[in-house]
């Protein structure tokens, strides 16, 4: 009995084209494609990271230990050293900025004497973060680890077997300084990285969820009318088709707006919780009360002042784009199930590749072909607008928003065209006929 029922179920489901495409064929095509694109992104990020493991060394101590032994340790850890000539910390900061190095450290006077005595010295490390991609953040993390390893190796070399384990564990007291978005922040790079990751992953994720929800609501709105057979009555009332389409758009918009508000509130709470955990993980000795630079500046990293309007515009446009895609799918699909499957099959390949690729590498670092393919995808511009808006590249963010507006207009025209004609009714007939034929 079960065999017969199971056979019938599998045959029915597999003959359903939307399920076949959405659940089986699309993953077979899209996941490998995503893997290839993400691999390219990661490959670019890794080669970039390998090429950029260079640090600037400002040596204010000027001893044999700091001039010869320490650079050797850095080399053994895979770091290339560029010497920076300066005479004070402020002077060094200026010189580092002028040299344009991404990573630097300042060895203070008296470092060698303290180090040979087994006493920790404060070493200023400077990280300059230019973009919010995993590649930059990963690179920062790798360099931070390599620097610590180099100092440990130096401690082992200087003190031999008699080394104090506590000194070996933490041979220097790192005073991290992060330069990002034209602000100087006294905080560990990992903490800033966490903050950036919330922008890099969190905000686009909200945009993806909101946008996906919009397409789903819009597709359901029309497909439900088809499925429950209320559409034909609706189409014969004395109202213009454009008015009916507009009511669908606005209805979907209201629902998705409510959903967006709920997501943003939820995301705000998530952000607060994340910020709380970052503060809790601040380095020992970084007293919030006695380090006003840390406590004030850390929370001042909020991106460009134009970022909030750009973010909301990008999410809003994504919502409208997806609503239009949903309407189109609703018109094409025969029923709610088909529409839901189709909407997933169409939006998943549009949303996921740019999301994953741009997570790992900035678009500028990608091979030309991948870059061109991504730029043709309107949803790439959603993520680009968010990223560029955050780092204050308003022109690039504006261009991305412009592309989204143009694509939305195109979709609106197409939706209106299909909604005006009899395709709205006959499309279902076509799907049925194909299914019957199958």
């Amino acid at each position, binding site marked *: 009995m079960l065999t017969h029922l199971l056979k019938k179920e599998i045959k029915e489901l597999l003959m359903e084209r939307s399920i076949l495409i959405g659940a089986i064929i699309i993953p077979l095509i899209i996941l490998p494609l995503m893997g290839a694109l993400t691999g390219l992104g990661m490959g670019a990020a890794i080669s970039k990271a390998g090429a950029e493991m260079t640090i600037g060394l400002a040596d204010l101590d000027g001893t044999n230990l700091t001039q010869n032994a320490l650079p050797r340790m850095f080399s053994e850890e895979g770091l290339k050293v560029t010497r920076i000539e300066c005479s004070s910390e402020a002077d060094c900061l200026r010189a580092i900025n002028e040299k344009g190095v991404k990573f630097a450290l300042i060895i203070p006077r008296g470092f060698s004497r303290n180090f040979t005595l087994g006493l920790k010295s404060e070493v200023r490390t400077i990280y300059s973060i230019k973009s919010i991609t995993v590649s930059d953040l990963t690179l920062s993390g790798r360099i931070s680890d390599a620097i610590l390893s180099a100092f440990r190796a130096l401690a082992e070399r200087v003190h031999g077997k008699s080394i104090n384990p506590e000194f070996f564990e933490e041979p220097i007291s790192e005073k991290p300084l992060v330069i990002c978005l034209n602000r100087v922040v006294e905080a560990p790079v990992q903490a800033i990285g966490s903050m950036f990751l919330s922008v890099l992953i969190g905000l686009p994720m909200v945009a993806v969820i909101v946008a996906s929800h919009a397409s789903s609501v819009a597709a359901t709105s029309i497909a439900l009318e088809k*499925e*429950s*057979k*209320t559409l*034909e*009555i609706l*189409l*014969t*009332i*004395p*109202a*213009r088709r454009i008015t009916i389409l507009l009511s669908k758009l606005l209805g979907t918009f209201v629902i998705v707006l409510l959903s967006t508000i709920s997501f943003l509130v939820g995301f705000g709470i998530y952000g607060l919780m994340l910020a709380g955990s970052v503060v809790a993980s601040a380095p020992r000795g970084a007293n919030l009360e006695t380090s006003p630079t840390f406590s004030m500046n850390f929370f001042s990293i909020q991106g460009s002042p134009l970022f909030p309007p750009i973010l909301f515009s990008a999410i809003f446009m994504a919502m409208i784009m997806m609503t239009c895609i949903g309407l189109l799918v609703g018109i094409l699909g025969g029923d709610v199930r088909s529409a839901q499957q189709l909407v997933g099959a169409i939006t998943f390949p549009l949303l996921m590749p740019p999301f994953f690729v741009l997570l790992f590498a900035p678009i500028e670092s990608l091979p030309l072909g991948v870059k061109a393919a991504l730029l043709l995808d309107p949803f790439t511009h959603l993520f680009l607008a968010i990223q560029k808006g955050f780092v204050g590249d308003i022109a690039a963010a504006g261009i991305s928003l412009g592309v989204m507006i143009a694509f939305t207009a195109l979709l609106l025209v197409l939706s209106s065209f299909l909604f005006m004609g*009899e395709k709205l*009714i*006959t499309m279902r*007939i*076509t799907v049925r*006929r194909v299914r019957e034929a199958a």
Partner: protein
Amino acid sequence: MKPVVADDLVKRFGSKEVLKGVSFEVGESEIFGIIGPNGAGKTTTLRILATILKPDSGDAWILGYSVKDEPDMVRRNIAYLPEDAGVYRHLTGREFLEFMAGVYGRGADCIRRGVEIANLGSALDNPMGSYSKGMKRRILLASILMIKPRVAILDEPTSGLDVRHAVHIRKEIRRFVEETGASAIISSHNMLEVEYLCDRVAFINDGRIIEVGKPNELKERYSAENLEEVFARLVEVG
């Protein structure tokens, strides 16, 4: 010009020609039945009259307005009940009547009339998702007849209903036409129902009208006891 005129309607879906030149006229205060087997072209004909589909050739006029060129004007004068039409599950029957009265620009009198035609009692204030098939059909018919369209287009109005609901609906259609002087076009594959309800009928088969006339005249012409027999003889002859 008669309220409804269809002239040589042709409709294709892909390579399949569903209507092959359908022509007929419907007069005032007349209930006109289009009868035939499934797939004969009844629903396509009614969808063209209701401006949902456009004919590939030929045209139809409702009160002189072309369904091809003036669909907005046509829609102001018709009301259409599709076959197996559904309901908005979360609206109550009363809310649906209010919605329909609103889109047709009608007032409280119209809604009262709808409530009377539907005759659903306290169930009118329940969500329509909880309605039986018969109740759904009653509320839909009420929403159409209450606005007093000049032409009511009803596709299989009693299909799948039990006797109690079917009788109610037939009675309301007849009353509507008599009271308003409007025209009604009904499609059905239930020939006995059409014989009872319609003033004139057209037999449609394979996209063509094969005979038109009053039920009694047709029965007499083909020496048949009912319209089913008339149809059987027409198909045999064809």
